Structures are given as structure tokens and as C-alpha cells.
């Protein structure tokens, strides 16, 4: 059975309507997460770019109008740290009053009472908060700022109490894998939802050290036999298509005004400083190329026995390999190992 939302998403996918748009407000962040996909946070800024190049407020307001006119319903603000932008509440108000459902993605450390109130009054609907451990010691070591975990948890409580839909985005890596159950329990205690993500990607700056943080196979197996058993697909697996929604119903805009197929797929597809969103969305050769891909273009995936269990993301594959329709062969990416593990656990559950 499909829900109305799934039907709308399918119509947007088939009609290439940018129903889901994420705007990166800034590269600035008050944490220094070791896995950050923007750039190595030991550096002052993204190499080759300057903070002064980031979008102005007036450019952001124009982009909000343009993506809305093109069909956006679900709009997300991300960063960097979105709450560091002094005009965030104004952007949220603009997006909400124009009819979009607004989600803010944040680390939550700056969610003071007045900030939460401003977001709610502006019309924000939901907030995603990144979590890297069930304990302050693990989380704070990951984000390299003492006291961050406590502030994130308190921010989640304030946001929840103010009526925002709160989701903890728990990033699972080798160093916090032992706390997965604890993270799930923390979300339950807070009364908020929890999304677990095991996939780490290379960075926009091309550095790949973040990939070393991913869980190893033994840990992956233990997690899927234990606290993450609910992520093992039932039946024969539900995945129907290799392709994700990038460039069809999903789109991203970087803090420099560059359009990308998805905020997680750093493939330059046009500049909103040179063209309107409509022009980029309808004429970009890069976006058209993605829309023209067929299952046959995913050579290593199309006949893969583990495909029904695969959580492949073209953006992550592109970030990691530089090839959007990769991987070049089975096993080249983390998702291959994950799909194989899920498949094996699923089959082991089946009666003889």
C-alpha cells in the first residue's frame, strides 16, 4: 500500500518536479565534527572558496521564491550550522508563508529558548538534530567541542516542548557503534524520532579521511543482528529501483548558489547567480544527464544479487568515487558490504 505522500513523491519523481529542496545557508559551523562532509574542519574554510562568496540574504529570498514557483513543497535549511545564520528566522518565515513545509537541520547546540521561539513563530515545522553518541564523552569527542552533547539534548527538549517535530539524526561510526542502543533509547526518552545513518562520505574538499570512520563488517553484522535488526528488509527486500530521487524530485543549492542534484551530491549543475532556478532545473545538461540514466547505466548494480537490500545513494557514491552511476564494481563502496550483510542476515532468518 502506498501513502498519499508516496504517491505525490512518485508524481514529482516522474514529472521532474523539485518537491524537496535543501539550501545550504553557510559553511560556517561551531563544531568540528571529524566526519564532516563539507570540508576538513581542521581547516579555516573550504579550500578554494571564501566566506565572502556565500549567498547574500537577498539572493536567498530570491531563491526561495524561485524554488517555490518551480514546485517545492518540502524545504530544508542546512549548513554548516544553519542556526549561525543571523537571518534564519526571516528565511523560515518567507518559506513558510509562501506555503512550504520548513525543516531545519542543525547540531542543536544553539537552540536557546529565544531561538526556538523565533523558529516556531516564523513557521518552522520540524528540526533534525545530529547526534553522535548516547554519552557526552563519545559525542563531544566526535564533534571536538566539550559540552556539545548536553546542549544538543537540551536543545532537542526545548524544540520538542515548543511543538517542533524533532528528529535525531544518529550517525553511526566505529567509535560510537557500541552506543547505538543508547542513542535509540535517548530518542525514546526524549519522545522524538530517530533516524540512523551508517554511511559516511568523502568530503567536498576531496579529502577522504572521513571514510576511515565507517563501521567495519563485523560491527555492521553485530548491529544488524542486534539493535538495528529492524533495518533488515523483510520479504524479498523492498528496493525497486537503483536510481534515487536526485535531479528529479530532489535538489540542493549550496551556500555559493550552485545547484546540485541533491545536497549530498556535489555535482555542479548550474549557478543561481547566473541563471534562474527554472533555467537551471529545466536546462542543465548535468541534471538532464541524470534524468536520462536507465538501470542499464548502473553496470555494477543492475544485476547485483544484493540489490533488494541495497541502500545505495548516488550522491554518496559520487562523493566517494567521482562516478555518479558507480560503483565501478561490487565491493567498491560501503553500501555493497552493507547490502551483502543485510541479505545474509535476511536469508539466515528464513525457515528451510
Amino acid at each position, binding site marked *: 500500500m502506498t501513502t498519499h505522500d508516496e504517491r*505525490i513523491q512518485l508524481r514529482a519523481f516522474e514529472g521532474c518536479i523539485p518537491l524537496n529542496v535543501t539550501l545550504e545557508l553557510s559553511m560556517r559551523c561551531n563544531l568540528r565534527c571529524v566526519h564532516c562532509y563539507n570540508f576538513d574542519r581542521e581547516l579555516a574554510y573550504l579550500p578554494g572558496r571564501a566566506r565572502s562568496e556565500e549567498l547574500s540574504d537577498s539572493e536567498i529570498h530570491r531563491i526561495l521564491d524561485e524554488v517555490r514557483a518551480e514546485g517545492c*513543497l518540502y524545504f530544508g535549511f542546512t549548513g554548516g550550522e544553519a542556526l549561525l545564520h543571523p537571518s534564519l528566522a526571516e528565511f523560515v518565515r518567507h518559506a513558510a508563508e509562501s506555503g512550504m513545509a520548513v525543516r531545519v537541520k542543525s547540531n542543536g547546540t544553539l537552540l536557546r529558548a529565544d531561538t526556538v521561539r523565533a523558529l516556531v513563530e516564523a513557521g518552522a515545522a520540524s528540526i533534525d538534530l545530529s547526534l553522535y553518541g548516547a554519552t557526552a564523552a563519545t559525542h563531544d569527542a566526535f564533534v571536538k567541542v566539550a559540552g556539545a552533547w548536553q546542549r544538543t539534548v537540551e536543545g532537542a527538549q526545548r524544540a520538542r516542548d515548543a511543538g517542533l517535530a524533532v528528529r535525531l539524526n544518529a550517525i553511526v561510526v566505529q567509535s560510537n557503534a557500541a552506543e547505538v542502543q543508547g542513542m535509540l533509547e535517548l530518542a525514546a526518552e526524549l519522545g522524538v524520532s530517530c533516524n540512523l545513518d551508517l554511511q559516511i562520505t568523502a568530503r567536498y574538499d576531496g579529502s577522504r579521511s572521513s571514510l576511515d570512520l565507517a563501521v567495519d563488517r563485523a560491527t555492521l553484522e553485530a548491529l544488524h543482528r542486534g539493535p538495528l535488526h529492524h533495518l533488515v528488509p523483510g520479504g524479498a527486500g523492498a528496493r525497486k529501483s537503483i536510481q534515487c530521487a536526485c535531479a528529479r524530485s530532489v535538489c540542493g543549492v549550496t551556500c555559493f548558489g550552485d545547484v546540485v542534484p541533491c545536497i549530498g551530491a556535489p555535482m555542479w549543475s548550474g549557478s543561481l547567480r547566473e541563471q534562474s532556478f527554472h533555467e537551471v532545473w529545466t536546462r542543465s545538461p548535468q541534471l538532464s544527464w541524470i534524468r536520462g540514466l536507465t538501470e542499464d547505466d548502473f553496470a555494477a548494480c543492475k544485476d547485483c544479487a544484493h540489490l533488494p537490500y541495497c541502500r545505495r545513494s548516488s550522491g554518496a557514491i559520487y562523493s566517494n568515487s567521482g562516478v555518479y552511476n558507480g560503483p565501478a564494481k561490487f565491493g567498491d563502496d560501503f553500501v555493497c558490504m552493507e547490502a551483502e550483510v543485510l541479505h545474509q542476515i535476511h536469508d539466515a532468518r528464513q525457515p528451510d
Partner: protein
Amino acid sequence: MSAGRPKRSRSTAWQSIDGELVLLRVRARELLGLNPVAERIWALADGTHSVDEIATMIADEFEVALEVARADTARFVDELVRLQTLQVGEEPGA
């Protein structure tokens, strides 16, 4: 209700998708599809028109009897108020 001025609630998002206006009740995560008459009422529900005024415009634009338009408009507005998708104020823009 007839003198009240319906206004779209901020807890509702909306978009026209393939020619169909879809309302999203954000907190309930529920999507509602609107027919053309309902879509027009939604467009007019900006806090400046009374329910009666909206019904009169619906009657004119869709060539239906005024009493039918009044009843249908009131019923639709009542339902969206119940779903907290519309709010009704007495003053323009309230």
C-alpha cells in the same frame, strides 16, 4: 461563520502538483488533494474575504446557485477549520 474571514494556517503547506493543489497538514504529515472549487476557496482564504464573499465569488466563477455555493463553501471551511488548516477571524487579515 459566514461573516468570518478564513485564513490559511501556518501549520499547513501547499503546492500545485501536476495541476492538483495538495495541502500538507505538516504536524499530522497528512496530504489532502483539492478539487478545482476547493482550490479556489483555498486561494481566496487569505484573511481578507468573508465566507459569504468567497461563496459569492464561487457562485459567479463556477456558475452555481448562490445558496449551493454558500452551503458548500461553509461546509468546506468548517472542515478545514476542524483540521486546523484554516483559521477564521472576524477582521480582515485577522
